[in-house]
């Protein structure tokens, strides 16, 4: 488990991470979401022991991460622009990481490499951006660490590769309890993979929740009311957002599915149905409650 307590990092006059409290539980996918400059990379760099916090602590299994090689062997950090040794080939990088990560799985590395269609003896500096990203994921997964820190790793991967990587993550989570921590500025990218999401904004964490919890307590309704009725007549509903297009009203409503269905049945409507909420819509509704105009952040 990774625990951040009042974690703070400043760069000169800029506070990149501002007193963040967060818990990342093992066995789930933690999504770290925020706009550029929100502090995602800084948070991950502190989690990877690259940066020393100015205030607060970040612990892995109760131990400090910074300058702690034993703890650092528990994770693999993929930065948003991963560095490879100069003139190295994938094979060279494998040899390098094998020294550092005792559980490095060479067979899996070769298997994944051929699966992704990457040449093990080709110089990495001739790879495309996407190929480099793929290689970083292959190396990260082959290192067989408990945690995998991914900073904008999906950025640059084509949709097919993105799905492949997600599948690999899911496979490793099932097989050996891998905990990926994925930082991204794109909500849609993480929608179908994250179990838990932390939203960062201006260095602070707006909230950190399980996606399922959020989905259970907020719903989207599309309905058509009889003439003479308006949204204001639906007083019992805890409407977070509403929008009317012609006669169709779309509402985001807080509450359990059963509770909402029961209330809607009491109103006489021409038509109503519950439709799935996207991660983006959940965030918009959740954050607006807290007074943030999140549309600007995530769209």
């Amino acid at each position, binding site marked *: 488990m990774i625990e951040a307590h009042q974690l703070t990092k400043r760069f*000169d006059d800029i506070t990149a991470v501002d007193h963040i409290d967060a818990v990342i539980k093992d066995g789930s996918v933690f999504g770290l979401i925020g706009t550029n400059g929100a502090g995602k990379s800084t948070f991950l*760099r502190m989690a*990877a022991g690259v940066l*020393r916090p100015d205030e607060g602590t970040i612990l892995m299994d109760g131990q400090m991460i910074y*300058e702690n090689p034993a703890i650092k062997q528990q994770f693999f*950090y993929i930065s948003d622009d991963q560095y490879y*040794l*100069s003139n190295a080939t994938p094979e060279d990088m494998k040899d390098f990481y094998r*020294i550092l990560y*005792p559980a490095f799985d060479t067979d899996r590395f070769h298997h994944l490499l051929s699966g992704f269609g990457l040449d093990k003896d080709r110089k990495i500096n001739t790879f495309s951006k996407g190929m480099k990203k793929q290689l970083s994921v292959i190396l990260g997964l082959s290192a067989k660490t408990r945690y995998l820190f991914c900073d904008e790793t999906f950025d640059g991967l084509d949709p097919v590769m993105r799905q492949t990587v997600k599948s690999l993550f899911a496979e490793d989570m099932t097989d050996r309890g891998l905990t990926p921590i994925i930082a991204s500025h794109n909500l849609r990218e993480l929608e179908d993979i994250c179990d838990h999401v932390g939203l960062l904004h201006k260095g602070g964490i707006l909230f950190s929740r399980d996606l399922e919890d959020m989905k259970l307590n907020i719903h989207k309704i599309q309905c058509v009311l009889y003439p003479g009725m308006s949204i204001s007549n639906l007083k019992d509903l805890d409407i977070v957002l509403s929008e009317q297009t012609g006669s169709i009203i779309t509402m985001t409503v807080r509450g359990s599915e059963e509770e909402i269905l029961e209330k809607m049945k009491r109103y006489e409507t021409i038509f109503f149905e519950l439709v799935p909420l996207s991660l983006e819509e959940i965030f918009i509704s959740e954050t607006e409650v807290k007074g943030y105009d999140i549309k600007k952040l995530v769209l």
Partner: protein
Amino acid sequence: MTSKNLFFKLMLEDMKTRLWSIALSLLGYFVLFPVAAAFLITRKTYHINQNLDPATVQYLANRWAATRYTAWLTDQGVFSMIMLFTAVIMAVTGFSWLFNSKTTDFYHSIPVKRQTRFFVICLDSLLIIAVPYFVMSLLGGLIVMVNTKMAAPLASVIPGFLLHMALFFLCYMTACVAVMMTGNLIVSILGVGVFFIYGPAIVLLTEGLFSLFATHYPSSRMNDYLMHSSPMMYSFLPAGPLQILWALLFGCILAAVALKIYLMRPSEAAGKAMAFKRTEFPIRFLIMVPVTLIGALACREAMGHDGWMIFGFLFTLIAGSCIMEIIYHFDFKKLFDRRKCLVLTGVAAALILAVFRFDWIGYDLYMPARDKLVGAGITTDDFESNLYSFNSRLELEENQYDGTMQAVQRNDDDVQLALTRKMEFTDLDVIYRIATRGITDSLALRKNNGSTDDNGWYSNVVVTYHLKNGKTKTRSYMMNLSALRDDMDAVYNSSEFKTAAYPVFSMDGNDIAGINYKGIRGLDHLQVTTPESKKLLWETYCREFMALTADDRRKEAPIASLQFKTAHFQEMADTIRNQPDGYLGIFNDFGYYPVYPSFTDTLALLKEAGFDAAGQLSADNFRSIMIQDVRSYKNSEMMPYENHMAPVTITDKEELAEILKAAIPDVGYYDQLNRNYYGLELTCDPVSPLTAEEMSTGYANFYIQLKADEIPKFLLEKFGITEEDIALESSHGY
């Protein structure tokens, strides 16, 4: 996996990323050693005298090649620069990943402690240089050994290796400290430059401030500081185990400092000018204060005016500070970003400048309190013109061209300073009078831009005060010696001065192997054969020389000179003499002490040994003296003298006697306290002509000069010489 294994594997991985430096190192040392050795072998006979027999030529050629390669292995000139350069390259490239956030993130995220990575890089850097160096120098040594059948080059491989690797280690660690403190390649290289030149620059700046503003500052007193002011100066230290240990010790200290800084260094420093923001102002301050002062001094020195000094001060301060800001921020808009720093730097530099310019520390007025003073060493150029010769030493060196030995003369850097440090004159009244006068005269001269109205004899006097606390303070006064003639004479007359100035007094009477004599007929060996007689002559001479006063010197001119040879000196001279065409010139001119007419006991012993120095200027010994007017200037007008008379030959015995009574013979010693007239050139024609042997060691002609105060009246009249002429064309002391 053990940590030792991990360390070794990390070293290998690091090596893989630095293959280019391994290749360059191998290539460089291949050229510097095996290729150089082959070059020496090929050209070895070119440097040998081909007129010798072939076996000797071959032997000398082999020895030349072996000696040259040995010297190359322990060279402190070219190799110092090579080691310095490679150390900087290895440090900057080895840690260049710290300048890039991508690489910094990579290396700092992997499960390796920072100190492990630090030592991996340092050890790899050392090995990249050391292994090729050692292998190639050994290979070169083998090439030379096989071709010359001499083992000396091989024996020097390890001492040379240690010498140069110690320098590399010292410079490398210095560069590492600079690299750790900076976050950008360019700034890092600048930082390395600052680390190497800052110490010498501060020492030279201090020397400059003292030289320019402290009137009584004796020049070039900073050599000791300069030698220890930078790793760059390592090669100027005496070579040997101490030098190596010194370098290793400081290298280790610097390694600890570099590691400490690295552990403190934030990863986010990558790409910034300085790794630690809090060091920006102190570093800027420490650089800009001396730079501003150097700018001010350079302008004053170039233009000779305080106004220009102020211009130089302000210009350097502002321009330098702006450049520092650009370096720090890489942004022209930040030129005047930290005006407070600029002001503080300016104030500090101005204060230092004012301290020296207005002598706020009282340097020029310094005179130790009586109760703190033990004594002083005092000397002036006017006391002894042969001081440097007396205090130098002869050494033998081999001439590689033909394998012969040759003598070289060596001096201490500053003979006057060495003299005053060992001399302890204790007449405090005299010391205070000299110091007081020195301060007054020097400051007056400075005030009047070096000119003075009085007609006194001005000369430089060096005084080293010996304090009761064991310390010494040295001052140099430009002062009127004529006004303090009695006190200066008292110093000269003292046994303290003579013992410190003349090594003859510290010789061992039992170690005198021989005595040479120089009279008007040139050099000769005294036939004093027994050790007792040699010792007696030495003791007699020392007694009379010790009793010699400055007044005696003004009245008398030396009529002979003596060289006391120690056994070692004689041994060196014999070595040279026994060589074919051995030239003893330097021995024949070295360390001759004057014999004055008042040295009656010495003269008597010389007479017993067959040299009548006192009688050599008898008119009976000369047939004639030819006198040539060689005045340079017309009297009173300082215009070139054009109408020289034809030479005049004097044959009249009475006139000859008069001339010889006023003669200053050339006996290999020049006494500057004599008032010597050089407007006439006198060539003597001896009754007994010079023998071939005398001509080989002495002079083809007898030249004499005349005491300015005793020129015979008939000569004054004959040549129309006036008092003004004498004043213009005569030398004299204080």
